[in-house]
């Protein structure tokens, strides 16, 4: 149980940190921020990589999880980058 308390603590602190860091984002960046954050949620890829592949079903689930998380990661970062490159100052 102790490990969950500790990790729960990390969770709460990270959410608080996130709220503090991004609270004053200019509206110009709303879409890129969302798309960039979306790419970060592809971190599920790290979780997908450690799944068990003992049975055929488990192997298939792990493969699909890796596949979709990785589409999320690559697609997300590239789209965000393309978008940000368009924003120009006068």
């Amino acid at each position, binding site marked *: 149980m102790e490990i969950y308390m500790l990790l729960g603590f990390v969770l709460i602190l990270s959410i608080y*940190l996130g709220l503090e860091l991004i609270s004053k*984002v200019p509206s110009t*960046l*709303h879409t890129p921020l969302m798309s*960039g*954050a979306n790419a970060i949620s592809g971190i599920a890829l790290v979780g997908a990589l*450690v799944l068990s592949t003992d049975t055929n079903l488990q192997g298939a689930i*792990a493969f699909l*999880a890796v596949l979709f998380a990785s*589409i999320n990661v690559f697609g997300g970062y590239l789209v965000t980058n393309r978008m940000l490159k368009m924003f120009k100052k006068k």
Partner: protein
Amino acid sequence: MGIFNDITAIQNIIYIVASILFISGIKMLGKEDTAVKGNFLSALAMFIAVSVTVVDVVNPVVLISGIALGAIIGSTIALKVKMTSIPEMVALFNGFGGLATFLIAWSEFNSIPDNLFQHILVMTTLYIGGVTFTGSLVAYAKLAEKIKIAKTSIITKFFTTIFYISLAFLLYSVFVTPAIVPTFDFFTILLVLTLLGGIGFVLPIGGGDMPVVISLLNSFSGIAAAFAGLLLLNNVLIVAGSLVGASGLILTVIMAKAMNRSISNILFVGYASSSSKSSSSEDQGEVSPISVSDAYLILESASSVLIIPGYGMAVAQAQHVVRELGELLEENGTEVKYGIHPVAGRMPGHMNVLLAEANVPYDVLAEPDDINPIMDSVDVAVVIGANDVVNPSATEEPGSPIYGMPIIEVHNAKTVFVLKRSMSAGFAGVQNPLFFKQNTRMLFGDAKESIGGLVSEFKD
């Protein structure tokens, strides 16, 4: 040297490095000057975290080929997609992230959770991930205009009902199944109900409320990843997931505030049932149409012009001609600004992306708070396909469903041009008294053609 012989210990240390890079990355992503670098840092963090995990995976061939295939698909979509389709692309990628966490939870269930807490985490992660997945797919289909199902249709009602049933079944799975082991395969039922429930979560929500839903789904995908991190005891998943959860939440709140509505009202009520017969049905008078050539004459003598784009500009794909008009006006000595309402369009910042694509510099884009105090010095306000965000009922008519919503107060400008196809009401279904004001001129027709007409008048 003890702990450094242990691969998990080394991984955990490197995960901390990645977490710090994620934190700096998302911080920099929130400022114009550093945003590109921030996105790069966060990608670097992802690369580090994934690389250090890949070194000791059990089944490298299968899993690495999964990454490779995902990289090809993801990159192809990202590089080929048109900038105008960004909203639906973000929704789609978001859904895939949700699907990944859904699958992680499923796999962990099959590996049999050790304790009650893990059991609860499996069910919750599965549910949030699954709802994010199918919910995002529906959002994608709605944004790409692949489905058009009315809020009142029987299909919508069916899926909405399934959504509530799925919530109840989640509670059952979390709290009852550990104590009273069911004789049926409750988990398969939960899998199916979760996926169908996600459809029901997003289906009844209308197009104009999409910015809120997209932000919320974005937040969900982060929270699901963070929960998966708790389940797998993985700190980088928790940190990165929480950051996404927080940023999505902030955007959700900003969007809801910009509509002066509560999040639950947007998700579960919608405009349709909240609007009573409040909008004044008294005679609003006649609208005054204007022709392109007359509009040109007024614009030509104006010294300051404010352009207010809305979803109509996106539909008409008019952003490039709008930029051209803006440049011609500036050459003519007119000061040109753009008034951007936070919820204009179908996703947060939708107008900003479209105008950036058309090469409009971001420092001429103004938010309502900046532009409203100086509105009476604006000679001509040009409203392009926006409606509710410039509706004066929000400030003048306490009975109106949109009363209290912050708007761009174009009615205080000297002259207002409204570019519109017809006299239909906006998304909120509220009549707009702006059209009947003394200083308003209606320029009917397709926005792209009307603006194009003005552009060629200037060139002649």
